[in-house]
């Protein structure tokens, strides 16, 4: 028998008995990051493919929400900081080795870009809107003329944002559950899937809904593939990785993960969307809402479980 214990009464708040430094703020921020990445990716993609008038919701309407969403995400981040009065220092330092630093700067660049992108579509969707100032009208014309370049940079940036939310976690090798290369792609896929799902909810165009249902189905299958390989990778890893995987295979996160994320958030929406594509009459927003909720719960569980996985004791 091996008995290992701390005998000096250590009980650091939020560190013991196991890490709980990040609550709801970080998962929410990560989810919003993924969602924004998804929305902007598809918006930019279909602009490049010339289909901006076919998929109006995806390309022109949804980007309006992105600056607001990013703002909410940043607020959540600020709520999480324990030394908030000094938080401005995030933007007086660039640290190449710190994913936190990357994230801060990426968001800083994304906010104005997404706002400009969204506003550039206002003449299309609000034809009666009068831009009062001349400089606004001129600026707008300029932006619209370089729209294709904006679209390409948005593609790149949104992929970076989507993957970053996963890499942020995987860079912490001290938390074995997160320490896998699949985190980045998994979160990117989840974010794109959430973006597609949002489009399905708000679109009034049946063709658009169908298209995005197809895309979402594909993304869900890829996501399921990533999840399976996440666990295969952990189980084939070192002891601490096996322990981390066991949290989900008989441990405290088993039910919540497999039922709420995999079944309700991935498998059932995929099934419903497949039925839709087979021309069955299914209200499409059901699967879309399930996908979004599943994505949100995925991030909550991953952030929590990662803190429960450890190297010691």
């Amino acid at each position, binding site marked *: *028998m091996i*008995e290992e214990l701390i*005998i*000096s*009464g250590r009980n650091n708040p939020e560190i013991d008995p196991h890490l709980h430094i990040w609550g709801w703020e970080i998962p929410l921020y990560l989810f919003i990051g993924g969602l924004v990445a998804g929305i902007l990716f598809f918006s930019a993609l279909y602009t490049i493919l010339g289909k901006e008038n076919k998929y109006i919701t995806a390309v022109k309407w949804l980007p309006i929400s992105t600056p607001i969403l990013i703002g909410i995400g940043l607020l959540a981040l600020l709520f999480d900081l324990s030394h908030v009065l000094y938080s401005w220092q995030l933007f007086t330092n660039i640290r190449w080795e710190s994913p936190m630093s990357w994230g801060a700067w990426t968001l800083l660049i994304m906010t104005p870009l997404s706002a400009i992108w969204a506003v550039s579509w206002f003449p299309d969707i609000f034809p009666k809107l009068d831009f009062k100032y001349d400089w606004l009208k001129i600026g707008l014309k300029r932006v619209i003329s370089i729209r294709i370049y904006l679209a390409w940079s948005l593609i790149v940036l949104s992929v970076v944002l989507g993957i970053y939310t996963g890499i942020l976690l995987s860079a912490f090798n001290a938390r074995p559950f997160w320490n896998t290369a699949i985190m980045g792609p998994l979160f990117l896929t989840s974010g794109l899937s959430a973006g597609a799902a949002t489009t399905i909810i708000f679109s009034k165009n049946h063709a658009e809904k169908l298209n995005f249902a197809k895309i979402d189905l594909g993304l869900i299958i890829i996501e399921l593939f990533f999840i399976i390989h996440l666990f295969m990778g952990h189980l084939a890893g070192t002891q601490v990785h096996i322990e981390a995987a066991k949290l989900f295979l008989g441990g405290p996160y088993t039910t919540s993960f497999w039922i709420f994320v995999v079944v309700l958030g991935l498998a059932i929406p995929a099934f419903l969307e497949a039925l839709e594509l087979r021309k069955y009459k299914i209200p499409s927003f059901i699967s879309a809402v399930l996908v979004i909720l599943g994505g949100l719960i995925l991030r909550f569980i991953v952030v929590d479980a990662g803190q429960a996985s450890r190297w010691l004791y």
Partner: protein
Amino acid sequence: MTKNFSRREFIKISGTGLGGLALANPIFNKALGAVLVPDKLPGLYTKRIPTICEICFWKCAGWTHLNEDGEIWKLTGNSDDPHSNGRLCPRGTGGVGMYYDNDRLKTPLIRTGERGKQVFREATWNDAFNYIAEKMQKIAAEHGPECVALFTHGSGGKYFTRLMKAFGSPNVAAPSFAQCRGPREVGFFATYGEGIESPGRLDIRDTRCLVLIGSHLGENMHNGQVQEMSDAIDNGASIITVDPRYSTVASKSKFWLPIKPATDMALLLSWIHVLINEKLYDRDYVEKYAFGFDELKAHVANFTPEWAYGITTIKPHIIRATAREMANASPSVIVHPGRHVTWYGDDTQRTRAIAILNALLGAWGRRGGFYYPEKVSIPDVPQPTYPKPNRSWRDAFPGKYKLANLALASGICDATIPTAQRDCSFKGWLVNGTNLISTIPNQKNTLEAIQNLDLLVVVDTMPMEITSYADVILPECTYLERYDTIRNSPHRERTIALRAPAAKPKWNTKPAWWMAKELSKKLNLESYFPYDTHEEELDWQLKQIGSSLEEMGKIGVKNIGREYDDLFPMEDLADFEFNTNTGKIELYSTSLEDEGYDPLPKFTKHEEPPEGYYRLIYGRAPMHTFSRTANNPNLTDLMDENFVWVNPKVAKEWDLRNKQEVWLENQDGIISSNSIKVRITERIRHDSVYMVHGFGHTQKQLSRANKRGASDSELISKVLIDPEMGGTGMRGNFVTFLTEEPIKGAE
């Protein structure tokens, strides 16, 4: 600097000389107070004031450091102090917690309700002293002043002792005798003519083999001993630990003997047998200094390792191997006499066996074994002679405990309950710095005694359980806020140390010296306290030995060296006359024989736990000192409750989980007031359970200690009395588990 007369003569001489000093009457001005403004030392320290730690009884000298605001910041050891060598133990380091503890007693209290119900009114010091003096004088008039007794385990005890003796009572007891180390003092005194005393004359740092019988150094955090043990480990010394539990030091031992509890005597006797029969003992030493070898040899003839194996479960080849290990290291070997040795009622005899072993190994009086300490004699203030008392506590126990040379705390407690055999009993207790409820076993007996008192005065810093029965509670300030007697403990060299206050007493607390003096005024005994301030008295005493309060305030510890060059008198087998009847080391004790006790230790089989019960073994944790520190904020941050250690096999039988709360019931049906969490560990035998002593408080006022863990003292109701000196053996109690909360009032 050697002198020609022997040590024994010196002891006789020093006892007589000091009564006749003329009364000195110096005039001190208030500027004396200015002397103790601490020096601002260069470098790391802001300000520091010398102090002596009061958390345990090792009495380490150290410094109280103040921060920039002049408040007490931290405590460190005094590097000139041989007790601490500049490093305090965790309790000493955490001593600041005692000062900052807001649960401290703040003002004198006088009982208004029924005893034990804790209904008190706040009183002025004057009120309190009037009450006490009145009651004391009433007892003296009706029964005699001898019927007031003092229990003391705090540094201020010397002043209350002076007051008691002046009042006419010789009955001053420290629990450290009959509840703790009394048997070893008596056992070694009978063998060598000298006791072990405190801190203890063991030359651990130079030993090559340290044999521990139950001593758990490292959990028992007596500073100097643990430090020297570490030095010994560095020097390659081997340790042999005999303990039913895998203690910390057992994990550092070359040999750990997982002995069956209560069978140590068999092991010791068979070791003696092996040393004698394999001719491993120090022949020259024994021939030169020992008396009674032939009787000893005949006595242990049958105590073979095979015989001991059947009793102790220690294999014979291990017994021989450890005996050889000890003999190999001789004379630099120590069979440790232990500290708290009141276990099974034959403790004097067991420590006699240990003393005999040390003699056979030639360790007494030689390097790496036992040294001859020296101490400075500090004259007491000039005062009238004490009145001659008519009787003492001994008269309550005619023909018993004849070898006890100090008063028995438990004896005074017993003699407070009126019986038909006695014509009087104790009527008043003054308790200073000892939580008698946890200290004296058989709580029921103690509580019955208390109910028979006319007066119970408790002097303490914290509202411990004993205060709940007091008639008058006198709040003492902590050691960081007061002066106390000058430390003159015996050690390799003579040192004196000063305790000086680093802060004013908080709230309405006062030091013991002041209390004793004020009370003396009410009792018309002020002539025994001739000085107006404590500083004056201390300065006078220091000046008698070549120092001064000013000097000690700067250096904290003064090393005066040795007077005689006889640290190890037996090293070269020089002539020596021991303070015994025969003038030799008495392997066969004539003094024990004279009083009708066994002159050679015998093996006694002790009771074993009944089915479903486990022997209750208790011990220490290095971050606590009994119940004294159970409320200290810094130390409770390390450990705030005790656990009951249960062997995994036993846990499986009882279906216990780790950290499960259980209640313990002992063989007499006494159930612990608090629950205690289980620790399932391989470190304890299947027939015993272990817990750290000092927890399980029931005082609501102790915000950090109340209801944390369980009290082992509660469960020690069977007391095994040592016939030679009255020690209260506490390890004969057995407990079983209750997994559900017992219904209150069922006991």
